[in-house]
């Protein structure tokens, strides 16, 4: 029992404090997704409004261009598809298959 108690003290920082930064990355929220964003790269103008608006920082960019989604963290909220400008509409939400 003492060993177990010490183990709990060591594994769970008192007060539920997370004593390091950036740990949200380790929590994979992609499993919550019901709808999946799909990018039509031919239509995308790389305005990056989706990158600004995504609440989960799940838009992946490279050299200033939108290249896809971080599907381990994308919850499928569809904000990117809504925010994509009307004249572009390069992101569509599709039913997640199982």
């Amino acid at each position, binding site marked *: 029992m003492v060993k177990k108690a010490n183990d709990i003290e060591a594994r*769970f920082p*008192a*007060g*539920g404090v*997370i*004593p*390091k*930064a950036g*740990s949200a990355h380790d929590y994979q929220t992609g499993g919550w997704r019901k709808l999946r964003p799909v990018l039509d790269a031919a239509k995308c103008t790389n305005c990056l409004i989706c990158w600004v608006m995504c609440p989960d920082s799940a838009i992946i960019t490279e050299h200033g261009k939108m290249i896809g989604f971080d599907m381990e963290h994308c919850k499928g909220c569809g904000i990117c598809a809504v925010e994509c400008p009307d004249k572009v509409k390069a992101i569509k939400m599709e039913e997640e298959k199982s």
Partner: protein
Amino acid sequence: MAITAIKGKTALTGNSAIAYAMKQINPDVCAAYPITPSTQIAEEFSSYVADGVVQTEYITVESEHSAMSACIGASAAGARVMTATSSQGLALMWEMLYVASGMRLPIVMTNVNRALSAPINIHCDHSDSMGARDAGWIQLYSETVQEGYDNLFQAMRIAEDSRVRIPAMVCLDGFITSHAIENIELIGDEDVQRFVGEFKAINPLLDVERPVTYGALALQDTYMEFKYQQSQAISRAKEVVIEVGKEFGRTFGREYGLFETYKLEDADTAIVILNSAAGTTKVAIDELRAKGVKAGLLRPRLFRPFPAVELSNALKHVKAIACLDRVDSMSGFGGPLFNDIRSAMYELDARPRIISRIYCLGGRDYKVKDAIAVFDELANVKKTGVVDELTKYITI
């Protein structure tokens, strides 16, 4: 500061003494919202801040919910934090009390005991702090102005102890103690600073070199482990209360323990009672002792965590006990002190008879004759071995 009437002593009300103790502690942050009967604590302490005699950041807030929220934020940021409240103010802090204790933030708060509405009432009973007894705060109860003053320094040490890190509440009776002027011994400012020591923050939010998260989600897989830790930590507070009480005694000449007893050693009837009413009970005991009645008293000082073994050991030789609660938990089965004491005594092979008496709610005066009437009842229980009424309202 009031005029000194006795050499070496200073005449202060309970509220002034608490505000003065806060000035001597000089916390980093105080967020408080004044409420009767603890108003003067916030009032006088804010004067100390305005006069520049403390370095405290005083946050004026729009409610007690905000007061406790600001205290939590400041404590998580790494500050030593104090506040004070009463009654509805404590009730409004409710959800934040649990956040403070769950995050293990060693905030020290004075609660000047007052009844809860409805009906509205500004006078003393223990409905407020007893309602908060399961909020995970350490609770120290104080009989006198002197004890309230002394308890505040000890509460700081207990709450901030590395084995504990749990917020602490110092309770004293509204008006009876908060507004009564008593000659008390003050401790020198430097001695106070030496006793409370420097505050060492653990995981301060303001340490930008080492960012941390407070208030993270903990679900089925981890929540219980954090609560287990909290439970272990508040249990450890008992030992720390004893240590700190002894050190306080060695340093300042007034030693404190888990509880105080009065003529209990050879008593065969006893009253268990909190705070100022213990003083009245002691007078009743003196009157009864003069007539040869072996009456005694136990006044718990530490109520949370509950020192069950020590209390039952101190009371086990008594034949009949009355637990007097200045609060009704509305369970139809007596007051909270009665239930905890009675449960603690269950482990004994030979158990005393224990009765619950609810007394003097809403500030009704508790008189010597009221205590004597209870001892008369106990004498009858002792003689016959029969308890006619297990739970009852008295002084009604």
